[in-house]
């Protein structure tokens, strides 16, 4: 009887995405700690460091607007990392094999958790922006700027999801995949995290910040929060993200095709 039925990539993707969303909702521990840490960053850095925005290098910028991207980006990394974690769980409990035995699209199996992760990330970012609004955030580029920030976050999340899914499918165990998320620290902190580039003291940190793609993401977000519409930081930010996505998504696609057709 089965042969008259047809598979559909769209239906498969929808089914897998829905399942991932259900899983996330039923395990609030997947996203709540991550959200709390991000808000913690926002409160603590804003509360403890906002005085330094008096320094001339800040050019009168509000420190809240300066530090907000750090909070958003760290939430995004956590949210996107969830996609890889979800796949690791499936690999470990054998459900992944059960899915491979269905005629469903192999791409959809990997795409479901990624899309769910992106939705989670959008909601988280929205929440952080609302909190920031109540703390007195003013976005120089207006509502359009908020959309740009959401898009940047989404792109960044996608790049990190690609990375986490790739690592998950390569290592196939929770500990290694967890270890893979430690890039979080260099990505977030070896950058213009707390002060503008000119105020970074150590030479090595300046070099690291220049190489670190997160720096360009921070700068792009800060430009819409603080300065309004400026082309160059945005172009640079989106270019860096596009490049990163291209690399990590290819990495995850190659890992996926290896994982689903074991030799």
């Amino acid at each position, binding site marked *: 009887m*089965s042969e008259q039925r047809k598979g559909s990539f769209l239906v498969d993707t929808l089914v897998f995405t829905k399942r991932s969303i259900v*899983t996330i909702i039923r395990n609030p521990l997947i996203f709540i700690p991550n959200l709390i840490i991000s808000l913690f960053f926002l409160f603590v850095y804003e509360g403890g460091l906002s005085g330094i925005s008096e320094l001339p290098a800040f050019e009168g910028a509000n420190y809240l607007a300066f530090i907000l991207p750090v909070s958003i980006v760290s939430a995004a990394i956590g949210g996107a990392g969830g996609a890889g974690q979800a796949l690791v769980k499936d690999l470990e409990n054998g459900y992944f*094999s059960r899915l*491979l035995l269905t*005629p469903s699209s192999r791409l959809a199996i990997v795409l479901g958790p990624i899309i769910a992760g992106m939705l989670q990330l959008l909601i988280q970012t929205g929440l952080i922006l609302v909190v920031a609004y109540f703390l007195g955030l003013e976005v120089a580029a207006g509502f359009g700027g908020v959309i740009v920030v959401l898009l940047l976050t989404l792109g960044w999340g996608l790049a990190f999801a690609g990375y986490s899914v790739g690592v998950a499918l390569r290592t196939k165990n929770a500990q290694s995949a967890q270890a893979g998320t430690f890039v979080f620290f260099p990505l977030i902190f070896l950058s213009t995290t707390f002060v503008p580039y000119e105020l970074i003291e150590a030479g090595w940190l300046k070099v690291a910040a220049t190489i670190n793609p997160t720096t360009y993401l921070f700068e792009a977000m800060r430009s819409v929060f603080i300065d309004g519409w400026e082309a160059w930081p945005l172009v640079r930010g989106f270019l860096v993200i596009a490049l990163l996505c291209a690399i990590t998504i290819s990495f995850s696609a190659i890992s996926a095709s290896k994982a689903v057709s*074991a030799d």
Partner: protein
Amino acid sequence: MDGSISVHELVKTYKGDVKAVQGVSFEVGEGEFFAFLGPNGAGKSTTVQILTTLVKPTTGTIRIGGVDVGEEPERVRWNIGVALQETGIDPVLTGRELIEMQARLFGFTKKEAKTRADELLTLVDLNDAADRPCGKYSGGMRRRLDLALTLVHKPKILFLDEPTTGLDPSNRQAIWKEIKRLNREEGTTIFLTTQYLEEADQLADRISIINQGKIVASGSAEELKRTLGFDAIQLVFEADEEAERASKVLADLGENIECSKDEVTLYTENGTQLLSELVRKLDENNLSPKKLNVKPPSLDDVFINVTNEQKERA
């Protein structure tokens, strides 16, 4: 697409020159109940994984329902149901959700998926637990749910890799009853690996025994027992040490001798004729078994014999 399986010269070599399967060939006809027996690590699970598209063979041709597994794996997946040794279940979802999702992936509409879930939950007797997360299910319930997931799309061919291992007798019975019904009433082809030889003996039309990656014997249970052409003399002693001593004393009487704990089994061409000599030898050595039995070989005996012969040759 029919319900046949055809495997020709299947070889699977893993990295580091580990030969998991070394040139296995067999045919299973539509509606046949085929049992694949072998000790742990013989290559059973690897063979199942290759036949069900999960692992690629190193060389060899496999046709499932006439379709080449290497060329059209997706077409094969539409027609097979697979229950692997490890149940594959997402602990967060409920039994009903898992079945409905599985049905959707096999092209059922939402409504059809709901109906199918109701049918299957009743079939595997999980109605009461249907809306609880599977993470809270017992081992037997998981197995039954796993079987339901395997049956969602009414596959023509079922692959069952040790489906009853670790289950209590009542759960095992329930699963066997259903597998038997599928084979006898619905004409489903069954490819089963098991360590419960008794069950293979009762259910399977044909049996192949695999050892160290090679098929060492094939046929119906009766044929296998006949080809063995041996009787088994079984002796039970008071102490393990006596049994061990007896196995040494009696070693040159039969073709093959097995000793495990307090039990010795001697395989010999003609059990009854040997008895007087056997008893004399035991007497000479002050050995008196508390139990002595001569019986035609069981499938267990066949199994132990063919797998042992190979060990000796190796």
